[in-house]
C-alpha cells in the first residue's frame, strides 16, 4: 500500500499537471503497472526514443486493478494483471485481441512458457508475459539463526509448524494479504491440490492457518519490503523479487541487515504478470509501440536486472546480469522448477469461501 498510494498520488498530480499544458500533438500513453516493477530508466528511454509521453501509475494488488477494469473506462492503455486473474477478465470482455503484425518482437518470447500460459489466455491472443516470479519465504538471516539455530530456511515447516513460528513471534512474521496465494501455499504444504476447488479444501487450510495465526504480526502485500530491509520483521511470505529488493535496500542502507530468499523444498506458487490492453484503450498505436519496446531483449533484461524478477523473453536471458541469472531464487534450477505450481482461475463460490475464511483468519476469530 505504501509505495502504491504515494506513487499513485504523485502520478495523479503529474498527470493532472500534464493535462493542463499538453499540446495537441503530444502523444501520450497511460500505463498501470505493479509498484516497484520497472527499471528506473525504462520509461525515460522509451520517451526519448519515441517522443511518446508515458503517464505511469502503480497498484499493489490484482483486486485493485480488477475493480478499475470492471467499472469500465479505466483510462489506461496498458495494464499488467496476473495470469490467474486474467482468465476471468478476458471472459468479461475487458481486453482487446493483440495484433501481432504490430509486434515484430513477439518472436522473442519463450515458446514453452507461452504454451503454459494458454491455460489463462487461449491462443495467447490478448496478452504476453512481462515478468514472473515465485511466492516464497524471505528472512533476516541473523535473526533466524538466533531464534531457530539454522543457517538457512529450506522448508515451509518454519511457517506451518506452530512450534517453529512461535519462536519468531517477537522478531516479526508477515504474510501476503493475498488469500489467492496463501491458501495454495498452505494446501500444497498439506499435500493437497494447491488450487482449491471446494469449501472443504478451504476449511482444511483454514485450520492450519488459524494455528499459526497468533504468531503473525500483519498481513500486507508491499509493506514487508521496507520492514524486512529495516529489520522490523524477520520473516515474510512474499514475492521473490520484492524480497530481493529488500535485500538490496538493506545493502544500500548498510544497516547490517542480511536478507535472503528461499523457494522451499515442498514447492512454491508461480505467478506470471501479463501485459494486456483494455478494449477501450484510446492510444492504441502508442500502446503497441510500448509493448513492442518491452519485447526488446535488452530492454526487458534491464528491467529484470533492476527488479530481480525473471522475464518471459527467451532472447533476453543472455543480457540479464550474471548474478541475477544464476541466482536460484530468481531463475529457479531445473530441480526446483519441477516443484513449482501455477495459480488457477477459481470459481466465484470458492473465492467467496476463501475471502470469508481469510477474514476469520486475519481477525483471529
Amino acid at each position, binding site marked *: *500500500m*505504501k509505495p502504491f*498510494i504515494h506513487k499513485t*498520488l504523485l502520478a495523479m498530480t503529474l498527470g493532472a499537471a500534464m493535462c493542463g499544458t499538453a499540446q495537441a500533438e503530444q502523444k501520450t500513453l497511460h500505463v498501470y503497472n505493479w509498484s516497484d516493477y520497472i527499471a528506473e530508466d525504462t520509461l525515460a528511454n522509451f520517451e526519448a526514443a519515441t517522443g511518446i509521453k508515458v503517464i505511469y501509475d502503480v497498484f499493489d*494488488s490484482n*483486486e*485493485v486493478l*480488477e*475493480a478499475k*477494469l*470492471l*467499472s*469500465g473506462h479505466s483510462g489506461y492503455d496498458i495494464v499488467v494483471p496476473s495470469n490467474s486473474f486474467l482468465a*476471468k477478465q478476458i*471472459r*468479461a*470482455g*475487458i481486453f482487446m485481441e493483440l495484433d501481432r503484425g504490430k509486434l515484430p518482437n513477439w518472436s522473442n518470447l519463450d515458446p514453452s512458457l507461452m504454451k503454459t500460459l494458454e491455460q489463462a489466455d487461449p491462443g495467447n491472443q490478448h496478452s504476453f508475459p512481462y515478468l514472473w516470479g515465485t511466492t516464497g519465504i524471505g528472512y533476516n538471516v541473523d535473526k533466524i539463526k538466533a531464534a531457530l539455530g539454522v543457517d538457512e530456511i529450506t522448508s515451509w515447516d518454519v511457517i506451518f509448524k506452530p512450534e517453529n513460528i512461535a519462536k519468531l513471534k*517477537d522478531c*516479526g512474521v508477515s504474510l501476503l494479504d493475498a*488469500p489467492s496465494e496463501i491458501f495454495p501455499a498452505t494446501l500444497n504444504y498439506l499435500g493437497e491440490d494447491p488450487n482449491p476447488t471446494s469449501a472443504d479444501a478451504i476449511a482444511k487450510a483454514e485450520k492450519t492457518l488459524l494455528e499459526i495465526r497468533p504468531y*503473525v*504480526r*500483519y*498481513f500486507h502485500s508491499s509493506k514487508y519490503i521496507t520492514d524486512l530491509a*529495516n*529489520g*522490523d520483521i524477520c520473516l515474510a511470505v512474499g514475492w521473490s523479487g520484492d524480497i530481493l529488493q529488500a535485500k538490496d535496500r538493506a545493502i544500500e542502507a548498510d544497516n547490517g541487515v542480511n536478507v535472503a530468499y528461499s523457494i522451499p523444498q515442498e514447492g512454491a506458487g508461480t505467478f506470471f504478470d501479463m501485459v494486456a490492453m483494455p478494449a477501450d484503450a484510446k492510444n492504441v498505436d502508442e500502446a503497441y509501440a510500448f509493448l513492442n519496446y518491452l519485447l526488446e531483449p535488452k530492454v526487458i533484461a534491464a528491467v529484470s536486472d533492476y527488479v530481480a524478477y525473471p522475464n518471459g523473453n527467451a532472447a533476453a536471458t543472455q543480457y540479464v546480469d550474471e548474478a541475477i541469472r544464476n541466482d536460484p531464487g530468481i531463475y529457479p534450477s531445473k530441480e526446483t522448477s519441477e516443484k513449482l505450481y501455477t495459480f488457477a482461475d477459481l470459481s*466465484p463460490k470458492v*473465492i*467467496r469461501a476463501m*475471502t*470469508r475464511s*481469510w*477474514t*476469520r483468519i*486475519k*481477525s*483471529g*476469530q
Partner: protein
Amino acid sequence: MKTLSLKPTLKLPNGRIWTLGVPYFWLLLFFALPFLIVLKISLSSMAIAIPPYESLFSFTDEVMEISLNLGNFLLLLDDSLYVSAYLNSLQVAFFSTLGCLLIGYPMAYAMARSTPRQQTILLLLIMLPSWTSFLIRVYAWMGLLSDTGLINNFLLWLGLIDSPLRMMNTNFAVYIGIIYGYLPFMVLPLYANLVKLDPSLLEAASDLGSRSLHTFWTVTLPLSKGGIIAGSMLVFIPTVGEFVIPELLGGPNSLMIGKILWQEFFNNRDWPVASALAIVMLVLLIIPIALFHRYQSRQMEAES
C-alpha cells in the same frame, strides 16, 4: 430551525424558493441519486461482465421484466461476520469520539477564554496541520509508532524500556490515528459554541457564590451541549466507516465495516453484496441520527 417553525406563508417570496432549492438540488444530486444507484446494484446479482452485475430490467417481446435479488441482504444476516464488524466499528467510533471530546473540550475551552489575538493564532494552529495531506500525516504516525520508530528509539535511548513497545498494527495505533485525525472536527464546533458563551452568566454564577468547577458543570457544560453534539456527530459518523486509518495503522484484528466493504468489492468482486452492505450501514446510521435530531429540535422548540 426557528425560522422554519414559524409557519411560512403559502407563497414564498420569489428569491427564496431558489435559495432553498440549491441545497435540495445538491442533496438530490449527491445523496439521493447515488443512493438509488447503490440500491439498484444491491438488488442485482453478480456477473462476469463490465460492470460485474446483472441488469435489473430486461426487455423480451415488449415485456419488461424486473428481477430483484434479495439474497444479498439475506446473506448479511446469515453470517455473524457483518454484525461483529459493524459492532466493532461502532465501538471504535464511540471511544474515538469520547477521546476527541476529552482532549478537544479543554482545548476549545482554553481557546475561547484567551484574548482575541491569541484566539486567531490558536485557531490557526488547530487548522495548520490540515494543510498537509491527511495521508502523509497518517504515514508520519507510522514513522513515529513503528518498532524502530522515533518514540521507541527515544524510550530505548532513555533506558525506560529494554525492547520496543508494540504500537504499530494494534488497536492502540488506530485510536491514536483517528483521534489525531478527527480532533479539529471536535475542537472547531466546540470553540464556535464556547466563544459565544455570555461571560455575564459566569459572573452572575460567581456573584452568587458558585465555585468555578461548579459553575463549569452547571452553566458552561449544559450551554455547550450544542457544540458537543455537533462535534461528536462530525467525529462519530465518518469514523464508523473509516477505512484508511485502520488499514494503514491497524493490525489484522482491527476488523471494521469499511474493510469488509472493501473485501466484498475487491476480493470477492461482488458489487451487489458490497452495495447491500453499504445500504444497511447507511440505514443503521441514519435512523438513530434522525431520531436524535428530532428529539433535539423538539427540545429546542420547547426551550424557546
